């Protein structure tokens, strides 16, 4: 089993934990476990009770949802440094989307329920952690808004030129 002493230096090297003190990280490390999955592994499933967050260390994860008639649609790809899962921050939450690895992937998994309790007992660390999650959410929202803009959409007047060539 990986010890708190082993995990803390690993966490210090991750941008997500920039600004956290060693004491804070030791508290977090108690509720953290290294995880690794093969390719095509379902990490979380839409609708499951949300209890964990995963900080990607290596590999790729697809965030997906099932759209009737289209199958599993990928909404976003997560890479090293990205967070998967924050639904546990809200009461009685379930995961909003599914997530599946594209390639062998390693991550740090955090137990959200116990993390929330630690945040109550260590308000400074809790404040830092909430601000960090707020940053992740804000980035995700900004990128989603840009996706919604559909920047590369063809103008309304355009269409397939191949039809023109057949005339």
């Amino acid at each position: 089993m990986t010890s708190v002493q082993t995990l803390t230096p690993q966490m210090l090297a991750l941008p997500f934990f920039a600004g956290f003190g060693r004491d804070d990280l030791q508290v977090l490390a108690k509720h953290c476990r290294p995880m690794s999955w093969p390719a095509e592994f379902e990490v979380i499933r839409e609708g499951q009770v949300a209890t964990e967050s995963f900080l990607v260390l290596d590999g790729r994860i697809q965030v997906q949802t099932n759209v009737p008639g289209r199958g599993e649609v990928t909404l976003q790809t997560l890479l090293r440094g990205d967070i998967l899962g924050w639904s546990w921050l809200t009461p009685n939450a379930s995961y909003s989307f599914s997530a599946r690895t594209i390639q062998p992937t390693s991550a740090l998994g955090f137990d959200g329920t116990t993390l929330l309790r630690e945040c109550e007992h260590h308000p400074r660390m809790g404040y830092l952690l909430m601000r960090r999650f707020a940053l992740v959410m804000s980035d995700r929202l900004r990128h989603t808004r840009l996706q919604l803009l559909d920047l590369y959409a063809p103008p309304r007047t355009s269409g397939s030129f191949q039809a023109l060539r057949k005339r």
Partner: protein
Amino acid sequence: MISLGGAAPMASDSALVPTPYVVKRFVCENVDTFTLTLAPSSGGDALRFAPGQFNMLYGFPAGDVPISVSGPTWRKDVLIHTIRAVGPVTKTLAQLQRGDSVLLRGPFGVPWPVEQAERHDVLLVAGGIGLAPLRPVLYHVLKHRRRYRSLTVLYGARTPSDILFRQEIAKWQARTDMRFEVTVDRSDADWHGHVGVVTQLLDRIELDPLRTCAMVCGPEVMMHFARLALSQRGVPSSQIYLSMERNMKCGVGSCGHCQLGPFFICKDGPVFEYPRIASVFSVKEL
């Protein structure tokens, strides 16, 4: 700071007179984009150009349009243009067949700063058809690879089927002396690559900001957010270059169609060092 300059071929007065070219090759890139390979009808050398410059192509009888050259600068026999068929002229050009004639004049505009970027990390950020004007930069850097430090290309497309230059991208991705990342805004079931906007990739790559020269081409909103992300990563504004698009007609700053604040995009651009256009970049309806 990198300053624009260098010896970009500029259109002389005679370049206001169109020259006949013949279509040597027509390639469908995706549902609305195609690439034309054009050779001078006279059989001589094609016009010389610098990466980022554009030509005016005539689609008879609809009119003419500015199209960036998307091929390598060293091809003396042909000019290559990648065109998205979105308006009357480009749709006319889309109907050209091998052997057809087309009129062309140019080259026009300020090019990408390929010489000034030497000894820098080169970062190309392209969105949609914006990859086409940046492709000559990529060819140039790869041809003169030792003159540059790292080479990274981040390319965002709407969907997997909208990705341009697929076979070339596969070759570039296989190279060990560069990095080429592709992302799509919307995926399909067969796509196992990255999904998300291109600025997301910018947040994740390793950067040596002070030694990076970034060239960005795509829709203005995409360039705006790419510029913001680059600035947040510490890349100096003077090392960020954007390619602006406006309704260019004459190509020499005479007609005023492409005026953007104090600039004529056809003559003062299309490539700008960001600080030059920062004040007008976000002005609505300019």
